[in-house]
């Protein structure tokens, strides 16, 4: 991305050159499909079938633009988003943003950990209570004891795991014609369940946490090239900005392809009648084929909701057999992304 890195960028193979420009954007795209994101897509798929696939198309350019703006802020200012804000806006502005973000993020990590633990329980039979601290400490150790360069490389390769969702979607044999129509034709409903699912989908896609992460990671990327001070990192060449754009757009396209696939995987799996019988609480959603019959106050505590993750058990031997380990492994980059900036947030 700068003069130092130029020599090894000059490969004659355009694919190799392309892959080398990938990095923060791709990882951010993968982190966007974290357990809570995938679960939200699965919940949407269970409740509304393919009816919400259009959100993937609508959100793609928006999300790419936002992440690109954040990436540019990181590259140009040489600081993370919080750092740039701190230098130019009143303190309370930043603190308000950080407190909100912190609460949401702690809750998000907790939920993701619980989701991973559930997935691990269904895979190994070992109780999920054990897995939460195990995964937590694993991620903690990885974020504290590794260098950015090595960590980023792991993350880049881990993104490949997300293809498990793509494969399992094909194994699930969705109705392609319906899926295509619902992807291209937006549908809206003012039903409370529909709106909250919509907010959830948009929220995991255009996720505030990733704004900060994206900018910070671009800064880390520059630091790994030896630019230690803000002054050294300030500014960016056209070339750098072009690479950043390519990286971010690739990551976001990748992210939303996985999103569509994850959403269409869950639908047949969750709708199995067997599962509806096992957990009576899920019946209202399982048996309903339309948005309107979902209870109005769903998914809030007073209302019936799913007891466990939708992917396990419902489809033994089916798409789930790839989906589960895939989901588990795919959780790692997301969790790591969410916890990493604890180190580099305000730089």
């Amino acid at each position, binding site marked *: 991305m700068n003069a130092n890195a130029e020599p090894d960028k000059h490969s004659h193979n355009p694919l190799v050159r392309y892959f080398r420009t990938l990095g923060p954007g791709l990882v951010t795209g993968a982190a966007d499909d974290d357990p809570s994101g995938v679960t939200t897509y699965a919940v949407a798929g269970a409740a509304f079938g393919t009816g919400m696939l259009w959100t993937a198309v609508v959100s793609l350019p928006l999300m790419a633009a936002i992440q690109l703006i954040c990436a540019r802020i990181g590259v140009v200012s040489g600081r993370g988003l919080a750092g740039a804000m701190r230098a130019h806006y009143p303190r309370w502005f930043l603190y308000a943003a950080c407190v909100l973000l912190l609460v*949401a993020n702690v809750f998000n990590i907790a939920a993701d950990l619980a989701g991973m633990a559930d997935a691990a329980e269904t895979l190994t039979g070992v109780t999920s209570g054990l897995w939460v601290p195990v995964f937590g400490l694993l991620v903690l150790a990885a974020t504290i004891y590794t260098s950015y360069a090595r960590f980023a490389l792991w993350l880049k390769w881990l993104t490949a795991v997300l293809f498990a969702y793509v494969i399992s979607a094909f194994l699930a044999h969705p109705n392609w014609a319906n899926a295509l129509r619902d992807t291209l034709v937006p549908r809206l409903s003012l039903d409370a369940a529909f709106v909250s699912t919509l907010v959830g989908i948009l929220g995991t896609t255009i996720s505030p946490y990733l704004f900060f992460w994206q900018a910070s990671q671009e800064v880390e990327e520059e630091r790994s090239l030896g630019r230690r001070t803000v002054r050294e990192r300030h500014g960016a060449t056209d070339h750098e900005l072009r690479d950043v754009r390519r990286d971010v757009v690739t990551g976001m396209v990748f992210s939303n392809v996985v999103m569509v696939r994850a959403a269409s995987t869950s639908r047949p799996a969750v709708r199995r009648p067997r599962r509806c019988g096992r957990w009576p609480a899920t019946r209202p959603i399982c048996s309903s084929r339309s948005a309107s019959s979902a209870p109005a106050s769903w998914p809030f505590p007073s209302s019936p909701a799913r007891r466990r993750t939708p992917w396990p058990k419902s489809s033994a031997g089916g798409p789930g057999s790839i989906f589960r380990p895939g989901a588990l492994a795919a959780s790692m980059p997301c969790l790591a992304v969410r916890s990493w900036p604890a180190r580099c947030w305000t730089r």
Partner: protein
Amino acid sequence: MLGGAIVAGALLDSLNVSAVRMMFLSAVLNGLLAAPLLVLVMLVGNNRKIMGRRVNDRWLNVLGWSATGIMTVATLLFFWTSL
């Protein structure tokens, strides 16, 4: 921060709160936070003191403010339908 999240995660898990519902709610929470933070991002991205001549170009502004608008509408709809 991560330590707190681990404790919270273990706690919530032992409370037998459905992980799916937690994950779903955390997604909704993120969605509700997005609108105000999007405004911040757009302000920083258009701030000449920070970005110099690299402020957002027209496309980034159109898409960025659309995202902000959509998230705001979605948030308002959420409060309107759920509360």
